[in-house]
């Protein structure tokens, strides 16, 4: 399958305020349409700052970012970029704006000028997808942190953007909740050929993607497929990461040559 670069960052530098130190230091990368990307790295390594460049919440101090045909530094392009790139943040408190769950999900879509019927259909779809049907009439204050996080995710998915960025958006979810989001991401990749970019600290989530970028002090220091990244394990610790369970067990048992990235692969090897 031929894939085309959709987001392209070219020698991006960014600093906050007076800029004593750079939050992003010379980052170049190219993300293909329909791929599933994971960004890993220590707290403060620049992951959020980079992600905020992808939907033009921040503009590079030098270098540039292209999203499709648009340039994030051109003010006239910002609206088109925001429509193309949806973002779900870590803290759902500030993301729910309307009076009820239902209204909040519709609110995002209204700005896209969709017809009533389309909005209604998409609303029902995401309510079912995230098990929110029983909560549809609830007000934000009646929801727990995890429930709010699901509403925020559903709202962005209903807008069907080309790219969805999850900035630690599953941090408040329990195991079930995380699995739900995981499977909805799969659906998005298949049905809508959306590009998914995830920032996470969960290594088990990270093994299931096309490409990982590891950030350290504002730079991309490692990139590649999950097996490539986790094989260069000597540096993993210094970037505040850890190896996924299946790789750790594999090493500890010292039993087989083949790489085991996922739990299922580990079980398969052990049962050979």
């Amino acid at each position: 399958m031929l894939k085309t670069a959709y987001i392209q960052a070219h020698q991006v530098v960014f600093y906050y305020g007076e800029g004593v130190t750079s939050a992003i230091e010379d980052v170049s990368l190219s993300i293909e349409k329909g791929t599933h990307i994971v960004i890993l790295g220590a707290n403060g390594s620049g992951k959020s700052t980079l992600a905020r460049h992808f939907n033009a919440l921040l503009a590079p101090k030098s270098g540039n970012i292209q999203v499709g045909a648009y340039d994030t530094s051109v003010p006239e392009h910002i609206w088109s970029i925001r429509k193309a790139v949806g973002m779900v943040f870590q803290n759902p408190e500030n993301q729910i704006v309307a009076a009820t769950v239902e209204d909040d999900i519709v609110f995002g879509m209204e700005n896209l000028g969709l017809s009533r019927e389309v909005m209604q259909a998409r609303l029902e779809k995401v309510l079912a997808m995230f098990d929110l049907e029983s909560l549809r009439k609830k007000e934000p204050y009646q929801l727990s942190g995890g429930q709010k996080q699901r509403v925020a995710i559903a709202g962005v998915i209903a807008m069907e953007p080309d790219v969805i960025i999850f900035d630690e958006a599953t941090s408040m979810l329990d195991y079930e909740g995380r699995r739900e989001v995981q499977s909805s991401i799969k659906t998005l990749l298949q049905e809508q050929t959306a590009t998914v970019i995830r920032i996470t600290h969960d290594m088990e989530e990270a093994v299931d993607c096309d490409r990982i970028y590891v950030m350290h002090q504002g730079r991309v220091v490692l990139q590649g497929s999950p097996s490539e990244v986790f094989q260069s394990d000597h540096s993993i610790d210094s970037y505040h990461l850890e190896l996924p369970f299946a790789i750790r067990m594999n090493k500890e048992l010292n039993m087989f040559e083949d790489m085991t990235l996922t739990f299922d692969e580990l079980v398969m090897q052990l049962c050979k």
Partner: protein
Amino acid sequence: MQITFEQVSYTYGIKTPYEEQALKEVSFTIPRQKLVTVLGHTGSGKTTALQLIKGLIHPTSGNVNYTEGQQSVQATSKKPNKIDKQKLHDMWTKIGYVFQYPEHQLFEETVGQDIAYGPRNLKYSETDIQEIVQNALREVELDAQRFADRSPFELSGGEMRRVAIAGILAMNPRLMILDEPMAGLDPLSKRNLLARLYTLHKQNQWTTVCVSHHIDELWQYTDLFLIFHNKQVVFQGTKERLLAEWQQGNTLIEPPMLVKLAMELIRKGKITTALSELHNVLESESK
């Protein structure tokens, strides 16, 4: 401090259109100086139970019993008499509550002032306050020289989290409530913070209640598990008892990875070990 819930129910928004029961006749004990890990799906009632413990809300029915040293007192749905009111207030101030993302609650201009905020409200002398701040910073392993005068907003995620926790340490709690204390931290910071909190738990002889979705990380530190499901407590007991539940096929909660692996291998007939034999392996794996 020891806490016992007796048939506690709680309903939000009573007699409003939004009325919602969050806890149904729940009974359990948090024994003194134990580390109790609270598990359960979103919406199962965990936060409601913690807020009842801290006295932020009061039972709709049933009792929450507190014992600390020689003192005992009960929170019920009724207004307490004057003596009990004072006793309850004393208990509640001895409970430290570290909310999810506690760094969002930092607000003072410097780290030192932020930590001093609580003790200052309790009208300690300025010299005592300085000592408390120094101690609290030492306990979370932040160098007072380097950090006390800095703005809390210019720190890393892990550092901010430790400042927020120092602010609670400054109140010298006897019981610590930790709501997802590691959320949002990278794997290394997570491990470090957890190890530090455990040392503090032992040193200060806290009773500690920790809510988390991450059973793997907490396993080695946990004395007792408390599992919420559908607004009720469906399990309270030790690791050994929880392993026995899984052995019998009760999946009250997602097991640690290693247990999942063993269960899978048992199911496939590859091993015949009882899960209880995994106990020692688990203790070392989680380190």
